[in-house]
């Protein structure tokens, strides 16, 4: 067995009112990928933030190479050879790869203040070549795909002599091909004796690259599993949520009324982004839009919702052709969009649950003059959504930023329920939310279509697409490559269309 290079013992961390970590043990061996899983709020991020010096530990001990160490700031972690790759990339887009790699420690020519650029680019290139990455050190980062940027991020961490690399959901915004590349890079790093702590929301990745897995729940260690081939995903899910999921991939009924067409899009085109997109949706139908990241799915729905302009095509709502120039128009015609990027586009994080829920429909709470908000009515309505959607919040005045991802998503959905839209576009509706909240979102979608709404759902998770959709459109590089009914859809068929192979 390989030697243990990191050991965390009985780690404790308090936040006001919460015990975020309760005596958690964790260890990492040389050259292994140790996967950390758990629902949101289970303590994964807290654990790695303690290791990387972002949070101070309240109790417990950390040993590196058998020596007891204290980590009080990110610099301590760096000196000890711990590097972190966060979900949000930290590269400076306008600088070159070399500049990014040497950022903060640009070498000077001897006895001058001038930067030794030859050395910067020479050494960066050497480093990139040694890792076998086809990247030019003089290229600017802007314009590179997220996948390549992430690799540079890894290189940057390696350049500071990291032996332990923490990856926080590294694949969440990568396409499948980019994920493959990242995985082969991880294999190579393992070969060089580098250890990796890997946080993921995607269970299937576990068996592809993991050596061991640790499950956290509510700040406690549930189990560290050494033999990952001996465990199934169902078992892991039940460890994470503490209950068994029964038949988690069934959708009860079909509420689709094929005779009533609610949304029709004809030949929608935006130059160089997507072209001739045509799709229809019916009352009570969930229409799935599948495709690889970058296939133009988000761009298409943004155009329908009036966020982006388009260069051609027609949109019909309830059989009537309409012109949508802004989200305001779209809402007027009963279309709502729950965006993929919840925190940037879906919610005003620093405002309360109440303010967010009514933000798109404040006019319905106005007095006769249409000026003053009727707070009593507003509160009542918001409270009813909190109850119906089971939004976990201390009160309607709670600031949304303090809610968990799942509850934030429910608030984002409640906003559209409150403004009575009948066509709801959901872009990655369950991204970044925990398993329990996912189920609740699915149930909510079912209820919506049962009540006659139309849902257009973009999702990168095939099981989700297959489970929820009545009909599926598949996009590839800005074009619709296929339409599948619920009966004919399989993962293989969708992937073929998505790769256009």
């Amino acid at each position: 067995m390989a030697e243990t290079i990191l050991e965390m013992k009985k780690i404790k961390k308090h936040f006001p009112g919460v015990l975020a970590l309760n005596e958690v043990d964790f260890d990492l061996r040389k050259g292994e990928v140790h996967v950390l899983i758990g629902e949101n709020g289970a303590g994964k991020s807290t654990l790695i933030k303690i290791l990387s010096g972002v949070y101070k530990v309240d109790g417990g001990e950390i040993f590196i190479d058998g020596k007891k160490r204290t980590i009080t700031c990110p610099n301590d972690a760096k000196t000890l050879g711990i590097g972190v790759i966060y979900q949000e990339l930290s590269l400076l887009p306008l600088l070159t790869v070399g500049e990014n790699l040497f950022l903060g420690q640009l070498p000077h020519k001897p006895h001058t203040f001038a930067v030794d650029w030859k050395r910067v680019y020479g050494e960066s290139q050497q480093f990139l070549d040694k890792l076998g990455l086809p990247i030019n050190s003089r290229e600017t980062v802007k314009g590179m795909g997220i996948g390549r940027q992430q690799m540079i991020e890894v290189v940057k961490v390696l350049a500071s002599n990291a032996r332990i690399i923490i990856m926080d959901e590294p694949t969440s915004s990568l396409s499948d091909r980019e994920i493959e590349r990242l995985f082969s890079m991880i294999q190579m790093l393992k070969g060089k004796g580098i250890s990796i702590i890997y946080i993921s929301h995607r269970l299937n990745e576990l068996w592809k690259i993991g050596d061991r897995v640790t499950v956290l729940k509510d700040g406690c260690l549930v189990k560290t599993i050494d033999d990952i081939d001996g465990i199934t995903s169902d078992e892991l899910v039940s460890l994470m949520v503490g209950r068994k999921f029964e038949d988690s991939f069934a959708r009860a009924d079909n509420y689709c009324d094929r005779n009533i067409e609610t949304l029709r899009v004809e030949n929608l085109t935006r130059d160089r982004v997507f072209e001739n997109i045509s799709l229809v949706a019916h009352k009570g139908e969930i229409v799935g839009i599948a495709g690889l990241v970058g296939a133009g799915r988000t761009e298409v729905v943004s155009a329908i919702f009036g966020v982006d302009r388009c260069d051609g095509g027609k949109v019909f709502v309830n059989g009537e052709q309409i012109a949508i120039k802004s989200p305001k128009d779209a809402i007027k015609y009963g279309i709502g969009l729950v965006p993929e990027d919840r925190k940037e586009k879906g919610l005003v994080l620093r405002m309360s649950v109440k303010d967010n829920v009514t933000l798109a429909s404040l006019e319905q709470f106005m007095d006769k003059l249409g000026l003053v908000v009727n707070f009593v009515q507003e509160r009542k309505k918001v409270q009813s959504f909190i109850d119906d959607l089971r939004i976990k919040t201390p009160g309607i005045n709670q600031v949304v930023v303090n809610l968990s991802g799942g509850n934030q998503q429910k608030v984002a959905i409640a906003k559209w329920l409150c403004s009575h839209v009948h066509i709801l576009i959901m872009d990655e509706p369950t991204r970044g939310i925990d398993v329990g909240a996912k189920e609740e979102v699915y149930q909510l979608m079912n209820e919506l279509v049962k009540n006659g709404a139309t849902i257009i759902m973009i999702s990168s998770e095939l099981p989700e697409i297959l489970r929820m959709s009545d009909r599926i459109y598949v996009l590839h590089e800005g074009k619709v490559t296929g339409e599948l009914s619920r009966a004919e859809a399989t993962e293989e068929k969708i992937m073929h269309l998505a790769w256009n192979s």
Partner: protein
Amino acid sequence: MEHNGKKRGRIGIGGLYAYFFLGALILIMIFASDAFLTPYNLYNLLSTAAIKGILACGMTFIIITGGIDISVGSNLAFGGILVAALLGSTNATGLFAHLGNVPVPLAMLIGVLACSLIGFCNGFMVTKLRIPPFIATMGMMQITRGLSYICSGGFAVTFKKDIPSFQWIGSGKIGAVPSIAIFFIVIAVIFGYILKFTSYGRFLCAIGNNEVASRFSGINVNKIKMLAYTTLGTLAGLGGIILTARLNSATPDAGMGYELDCITAVVIGGTSLSGGKGTIAGTVAGIFIMVVLATSLNLLGVQSIYQYLSKGLILLIAVLIDSYLNRRRG
């Protein structure tokens, strides 16, 4: 939860600090100087606070959206000169020389509309032309200041004859209260009400917090912002009228530095410079802190040149408190 909106109170933490500070300042002054509590001093204090206070109400809205308007002082000067010229003056030049004998209400209306138009231009530049607010309004500041000098020939514009109804605006009284204090109170109440109880107020905060999410929620962001800049223009016009009525003349260098005093007051009052939250009650406290402090220093015999120091220090302290609170909120 510690961040619960309800517990933070009606005027926010920053605004609350401002009232404590103002209270302490007044208490100290009551003991330190016999002249402080005299009717004369209080009258002066209210009058001085009123004009800047009126502007600061509009400035609060703009800062809540994450913007800023530094043209407000010179906008006020231009409004004053325009109205004075319309009412008939001794030495307006150029186009303005031929104005005069316009009825008071019409003159005031034209002056206010002109300033609103300037405010609208600011809003247009910020939203449609996407010029950063600081730069757009800096340009406008120079333009309107220049216009004021050109139209007045560089001198104070004085009236040919007394116009009592106009002069009442600046120096009249209702009971013991100066008329301009009443204007200030009315405007502060209206603006406070708009901010707290109307959808417009809610949208201002939403835009300041997250412009993209606001747009995704169907809010017409540009319209709301343009209205905020136009409104401050309108208030600058009103301020120009009041100042002209009070001094019985309009000068092209009126309102110099008012923009800084307004911004300082707004920030002292707990409105975040990064936008998203703020209150009129806080801004009112902020204005009074500035004015009481200046008056106090006068009463205590500190030379006025030192007042710049005190203003600057207070602004920096307020900003420090703001950023500290922001950081604590995470």
